[in-house]
């Protein structure tokens, strides 16, 4: 009797799960229909326009004789953007490392400060870099500093969070052991946490450099600096050849950085 009851309960768990899935699926469909209706979006038209777009890109967005002459200018802007991303990420990484020490379970000074640190990190991370750029446009204007700080804030938030998790994962045990030997806080950080978390930290910094090169292109459109700006310029002048050369050079740069950072990762792991 008792057994039978349990068995029935067990089976009803599966029925329940099915019901939940069905409800969730229907919910998503309804949301989609509603959103499409409000925005006048037509799925079929959307998909139909893809081939047309491809044809347009293939005919218009091809670098021509004239656009190749703009290559030196494009490259110098591209390098400027890449170096800015590297500088931002490294600065933010160093700040985030020391800030994250206040947020980890192993090294925080007290739980409240830990909580505040996590909150600040979440805030900086969750405001998108483009929004930071818009905000900072008011104070700095269309300036390279605007882009720098916009990227700095999101990178700082993102890296603080990941560093807290990394440090908690890899070094809580050795922090305990070093504390027990009589090592003080700074010694424990440099002899215990830095060596055990360094490779993960470098991996995250490399990842953020890649991400920031992509984002800085977009932010450059807003702040009128770097590669984003000249793309905007050529595009609005209807110089599609040069604009496409910008796009191609960005793609090459991103792939190049990806390859380099993969190599670095292999060496440090």
């Amino acid at each position, binding site marked *: 009797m008792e057994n039978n009851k349990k068995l029935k309960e067990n089976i009803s768990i599966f029925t329940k799960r099915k019901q939940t899935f069905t409800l969730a699926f229907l919910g998503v469909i309804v949301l989609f229909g509603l959103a499409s209706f409000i925005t006048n979006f037509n799925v079929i038209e959307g998909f139909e326009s893809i081939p047309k777009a491809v044809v347009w890109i293939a005919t218009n967005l091809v670098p021509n004789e004239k656009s190749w002459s703009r290559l030196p200018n494009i490259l110098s802007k591209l390098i400027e953007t890449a170096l800015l991303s590297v500088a931002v990420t490294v600065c933010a990484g160093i700040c985030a490392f020391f800030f994250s020490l206040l947020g980890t379970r192993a090294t925080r000074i007290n739980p409240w400060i830990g909580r505040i640190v996590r909150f600040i990190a979440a805030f900086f991370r969750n405001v998108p870099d483009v929004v930071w750029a818009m905000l900072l446009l008011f104070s700095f204007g269309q300036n390279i500093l605007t882009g720098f700080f916009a990227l700095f804030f999101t990178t700082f938030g993102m890296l603080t969070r990941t560093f807290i998790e990394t440090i908690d994962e890899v070094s809580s045990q050795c922090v305990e*052991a070093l504390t027990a030997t*009589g*090592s003080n806080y*700074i*010694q*424990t950080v*440099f*002899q*215990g946490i830095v060596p*055990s978390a360094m490779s993960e930290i470098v991996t995250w910094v490399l990842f953020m450099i890649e991400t920031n090169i992509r984002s800085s292109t977009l932010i450059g459109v807003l702040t009128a600096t770097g590669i984003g700006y000249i793309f905007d310029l050529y595009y609005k002048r209807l110089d599609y050849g040069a604009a496409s050369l910008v796009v191609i050079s960005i793609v090459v740069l991103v792939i190049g950085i990806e390859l380099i950072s993969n190599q670095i990762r292999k060496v440090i792991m």
Partner: protein
Amino acid sequence: MPILEFQNVSKIYNGSTRALSEVSFSINEGEFVSIIGPSGSGKSTILRCINRLVDASQGVIRFDGHDILKANKNELRTIRTKTGMIFQHYNLVERLSVIENVLHGRLGHKSTLGGMLGIYSEEEKENAFAILAKLGLTEQAYKRCDELSGGQKQRVGIARSIMQSPRLILCDEPIASLDPSSSKVIMDHLANINDTMKITCVVNLHQVDVVMKYSKRIIGITSGHIVYDGPPEKLTKEKIYEIYQSNEGDLITDVG
């Protein structure tokens, strides 16, 4: 003259969980004491109260003339340099080499800057190599710790604690993750350190047979109370069942 003394020490976690209640005992210099008891009975808490990885809630703990609970930051650092600690999971900095991990035992004696940058004197380095030789790890000195076996890692842990030139070594289940042969190597090294270097050893253990063989004194603890304190000869079967709060036939030692 006892080197370590507990007087009515209690520890309450988060205001409600009672880990130790009114624990009192004293240990003389050069003793080899094992602490046994079920998981969660307070064995680890006792060890961690000694070097203040955990702060006791009430009572008095004296170690080598210091009142541990009243020690300020600098005194605490001195106390910690005098107490080595060995952990179940070795707690090494896995990405550093064996010799660097052994030299970490000197951090408590160094200036902040010297320790931060890892600058050690020739004498300290020679001493570290001598300790490694004693523990049979000379060939592993430059290997990264994550390449070592469990037994080797634990020997590095022992080397690090000896490097501190401690008066007392605390071992928190040193052989719980090791196979029987490595376990014997580790216990032999601990016995040897206790014997030749006259360093007092307090060891938390789960293996009753190991305890009987290696220690001259056993402390049995059950839910925060000391229920046995004496030599292994007087630890009767009934007492063991009382410590582990189980009936005859329910312990792994009863098999076979």
